[in-house]
């Protein structure tokens, strides 16, 4: 009992952190298809890798391969738990985040008391809470490389701080912290800058640089286990490049890197939007500036302040030098600006805490109860918002049964491209989207489980090549050759894979494809069925058909002949000069529609489903009563 009372503050704090860091499990479970464009491509790449496909050779991507390798994990998780792939990613990342938060707290709990210089938990708790909270606010950038990096970096940062403060963590824990950090740092080289800056911030704590000199001249050596563990994954990763097939490496260097380096600024914004384009950009800067001013006042009050602000500066540098106004690039800066403010709040709370703890013995318990209440309140807020969002979207849902899963997703957050893919193809069909960006082709294609119809998961390389030509007109011939190659490969893939649907973005992609007569050369067996999300949709019909010529009435007439048995689909197709598979598809759709509309009903489909749900709920209630009776009767 005494032990429990002693450990009570720790338990309460841990519970609070658990609640806060895991609050969005509910959100992601209620949005099983929610995923952003970039992440969906990474997951798709993970799927392809597991199918034995070779990166760059069998599927193209600009990014170095580590993110592809890592995305095998959420794919395996999704398969193990029969989850939609997006949900597999989100749940995996959530779990990692919860682990990261609790592990960071554990490190502080275990080693804070063993530091030469005082490391006060009360000072660091707001920072941990802010870290736990931050991931709950991420939706579009959830699971981005920057997000994954912060998840791995946080425990490592805490461990390094403890090490600099004089603690000697166990080598196993150090390796467990260092290795993932090194692995996720390898996602982008600029992440190493963040680590280096944090080290400098720790080293130059003291006014005269004594700490740096002391640390660097330690007899035991300053290469602690976590630093050694940090170095291993990047080394392995670097070596792994040698194991990529030569052809794949050639594509990566000659095609991917070339296009990226010369055409990267397509879609770039000017300087001001990067800073204050909208509140998502502006607020991190305002938070940092506020934190920076307070830092000037409190700079001697904590050993953590200098490293955190150095990290902020590194993140700001990385963001600005990237030259793109994308929120995920700002993510580390956004996080650490908030952590800076939280740490400063923690320092002030420390003063208050120290005042009270001498007067009241139960201060730590009270503080931990308050912490739990605040965390719980915040967690409840996230969960309540998640529920309210779904409740308010009543009726506007998409049933995942069509995709082979149980549950539903809010229809409003699905692109029209997704609905088009579902409507016009079946599970397992191949689809090709040629657009200037990644969205809406991805995530739609991943969400509806349609396989990629080409090695090019997106048409982004074409627009980047166009930009590259503008940037370097002297290299036009080279970029033109690359463009011709990509377009030829797209055509080759269409002929080989015969995707059910091909989306061609109207502007600018259609204009870029026009000189190559792409539509007439490679889409002869496709018919234009309409436009969605700014792209023309071509469906494989066997041969090219002008579908607009055939009104619903005319189709009805043809279909009835087949259903009534007067003629076969082949006869009708031959008579009207249409592809057989097109007529067969119309017949199938008519039959399916007839089945659902011939049933007796008093209400419309939605009304009937609601009735069904009420009946089932009533049944469940009855069953629960019986269970309670049995339980009570059993005692």
């Amino acid at each position: 009992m005494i032990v429990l009372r002693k450990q009570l503050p720790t338990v309460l704090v841990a519970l609070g952190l658990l609640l806060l860091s895991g609050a969005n499990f509910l959100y992601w479970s209620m949005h099983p298809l929610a995923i952003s464009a970039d992440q969906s491509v990474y997951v798709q790449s993970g799927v392809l890798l597991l199918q034995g496909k070779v990166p760059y050779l069998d599927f193209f991507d600009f990014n170095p391969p580590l993110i592809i390798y890592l995305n095998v994990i959420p794919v395996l998780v999704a398969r193990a738990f029969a989850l939609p792939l997006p949900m597999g990613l989100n749940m995996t990342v959530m779990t990692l985040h919860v682990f990261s938060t609790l592990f960071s707290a554990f490190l502080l709990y275990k080693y804070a008391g063993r530091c030469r210089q005082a490391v006060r938990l009360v000072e660091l708790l707001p920072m941990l809470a802010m870290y736990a909270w931050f991931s709950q606010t991420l939706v579009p950038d959830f699971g981005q490389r920057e997000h994954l990096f912060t998840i791995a970096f946080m425990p490592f940062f805490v461990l390094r701080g403890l090490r600099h403060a004089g603690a000697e963590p166990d080598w196993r824990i150090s390796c467990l912290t260092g290795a993932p950090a090194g692995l996720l740092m390898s996602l982008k080289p600029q992440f190493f800058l963040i680590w280096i800056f944090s080290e400098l911030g720790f080293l130059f704590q003291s006014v005269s640089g004594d700490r740096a000199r002391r640390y660097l001249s330690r007899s035991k050596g300053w290469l602690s286990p976590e630093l050694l563990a940090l170095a291993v994954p990047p080394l392995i990763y670097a070596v792994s490049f040698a194991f990529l097939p030569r052809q794949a490496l050639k594509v990566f260097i000659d095609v991917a890197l070339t296009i990226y380096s010369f055409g990267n600024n397509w879609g770039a914004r000017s300087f001001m939007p990067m800073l204050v384009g909208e509140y998502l950009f502006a607020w991190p800067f305002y938070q940092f500036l506020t934190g920076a001013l307070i830092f000037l006042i409190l700079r001697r009050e904590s050993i953590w302040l200098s490293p955190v602000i150095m990290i902020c500066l590194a993140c700001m540098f990385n963001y600005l030098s990237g030259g793109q106004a994308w929120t995920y690039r700002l993510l580390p800066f956004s996080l650490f600006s908030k952590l800076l403010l939280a740490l400063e709040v923690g320092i002030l709370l420390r003063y208050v805490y120290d005042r009270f703890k001498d007067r009241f013995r139960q201060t730590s318990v009270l503080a931990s109860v308050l912490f739990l209440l605040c965390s719980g309140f915040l967690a409840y807020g996230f969960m309540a918002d998640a529920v309210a969002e779904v409740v308010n979207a009543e009726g506007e849902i998409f049933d995942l049964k069509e995709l082979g899963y149980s549950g539903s997703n809010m229809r409003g957050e699905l692109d029209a491209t997704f609905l088009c893919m579902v409507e016009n193809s079946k599970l397992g069909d191949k689809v090709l989207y040629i657009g200037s960006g990644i969205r809406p082709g991805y995530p739609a294609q991943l969400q509806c489980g349609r396989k990629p119809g080409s090695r090019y998961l997106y048409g982004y390389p074409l627009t980047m090549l166009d930009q590259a030509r503008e940037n370097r007109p002297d290299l036009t011939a080279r970029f033109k050759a690359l463009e011709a190659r990509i377009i030829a490969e797209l055509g080759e893939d269409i002929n080989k894979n015969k995707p059910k649907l091909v989306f061609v973005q109207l502007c600018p992609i259609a204009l870029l494809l026009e000189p190559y007569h792409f539509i007439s050369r490679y889409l002869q067996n496709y018919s234009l069925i309409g436009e969605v999300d700014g792209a023309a949709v071509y469906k494989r019909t066997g041969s090219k058909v002008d579908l607009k010529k055939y009104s619903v009435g005319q189709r009805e007439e043809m279909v009835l002949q087949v259903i009534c048995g007067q003629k076969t689909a082949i006869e009708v197709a031959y008579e009207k000069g249409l592809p057989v598979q097109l007529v067969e598809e119309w017949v199938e759709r008519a039959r399916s529609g007839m089945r659902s509309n011939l049933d007796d009903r008093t209400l419309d489909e939605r009304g009937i489903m609601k009735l069904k749900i009420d009946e089932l709920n009533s049944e469940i209630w009855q069953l629960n009563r019986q269970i309670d009776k049995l339980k009570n009767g059993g005692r």
Partner: protein
Amino acid sequence: MPVMSVQTFKERFRALFLTSEAVAFLVVTLPAFLLIGRDYLTRRGDLSPLVAMHLVTNQLVTSEQVPYVDFLDLAQPIIYELYRLPALLNEGLGFCGMPMRLEEVVKLIVLVLTALSSVACFLILGLARKSLQARAGAEQSDKEEEESLTDALGLAQVAFPLAPVLLTYMGRFQLGEVQFLMALAFIPWIAIRYLAYRGWQLPTFVGLFLGSVTGLAFSLEFPYLLAPLALEAVLSASMKKLKPVFCMDNLGLVLAALVVALRLYKWPEAMQAAYWNWIMPLRMLQFGELDEMIHGLGTSPDLFYVFYGFIAVFILFVLGGKRNAIYVPVIAGSVIGIAFFLLEKQGFTRDILLAMASILLGLALFLCDFIQRFCRRFVTVEGLRKRVSLLLLALPICAYSAFYLVRIEADYSEGINPNPKVKSPGHGDINLYVQAHSQWRHPVAILCDYPDSTYPLLFNLERTPGTYLINGRPIRQLMRLEKLNLLSGHWKELNDTILRNLEAEFSSSRADLVLVSGCYMQDYVRQNKLLDLLRENYDQGSPCIFLSDNRQPREFIGFYYGYDTWLRRKSK
């Protein structure tokens, strides 16, 4: 806290010029200043845009026009009062047989103010250092602290006077802008306030005067008075002292700000009403969302280098600046400057000068600190150490000056004869077009979302403004309000006033030449049926464009579109 007596002040003043810091000032700072001063004075037509605009509006005010009522500009009322001085001085010089162009007078004033800022820093820090040296000798207590403070002041006495000069290089085409004037006041103010918190005060009237100057400078634009207030808060909190807040310096600042605020009420009532109903709300609106036209690539000037400088100076502070408390207000100044830049939400270089000044001051301090440490460690002979220090300081300053002088030459040439990377076939430069299609001292109306294409063009060509919209920036805000269905009340009143004036101007063919920039301004003209009036009274000419790579001295915001041109019908 001891306040220096006047006698002591005079003695120490004389002794100042017998120090190595004085040598550094004369050998490094002064030549750099003279170089840039010469460059500034010898070139023509390169006044910064808003300075040129204010000179033009001053002419309107002199001819009895009421700001905001007879012409729309966003400047604070104090600007119209201060800009009388160059004109008065110009007249006075003419009267004394030394006629100068107005442009030259303005440039001289700017250079004099820069020199005063530099000299003020040198004198204040020098006097403080002498006082503290004398105090350290007399009293044994805290001797170590006093000595380190004296060393720090020695450092500052070299770096602080250098900072305004360095700023004139980096912000060469923004000299005289509001933030530049603020920066000139801010640099010595940082020194003054820092010294106050370290236990040294200026004589009463000197403090009151310098405080007033700073208060006046920061009242030139709203809400920049927050800058010295924020600095005060940081100093007070970091030094954990409250008493220095209540001093003559701050009293002077507050009094000056009050006087500036009250001066509004000497203007006509219509102007006061327009100020509170239009100008201040427009100013507040600007701090809201970023204008959608400043989103695409190239739609705002590229100022990454300032942010990289900020990051560098902050890193230096974190890694090595903690030993010297003087870095605290300097870094605070850079943070405050960056904050104001973000608040302005435009992206012009003139909006980041305050941050630039503090960053340059910080870099100068670190440079001096590094040189001092290096020499202390490696040069043991005292006399040689001073010479080596001077040489090591002079080298980077020379390199900096040389780099910027070359760049200024290139930028100036580009300003006069632009040849941007993005070609616009069929579009001549706006400068040549206005020159060719209008006459000296005749009105020209340039309707644009920002004033930089209009000024200093109209000032250099001596064309009078032919429109109520001296600064067309409000149109963007009114268009946005209309889109959000918020164009009511005083906003509608402002919009109606603008339209009424434009209708009258176009109907009466007031201007020889009307240029309307694409796309938003053209949309505004079209939507409000002003295009018909233009067609009735003007002939459409060939389009022109503000040729630019969006860097100094030709900065712009928004899309790189041309101007539709309208020439008054000859029959009129």
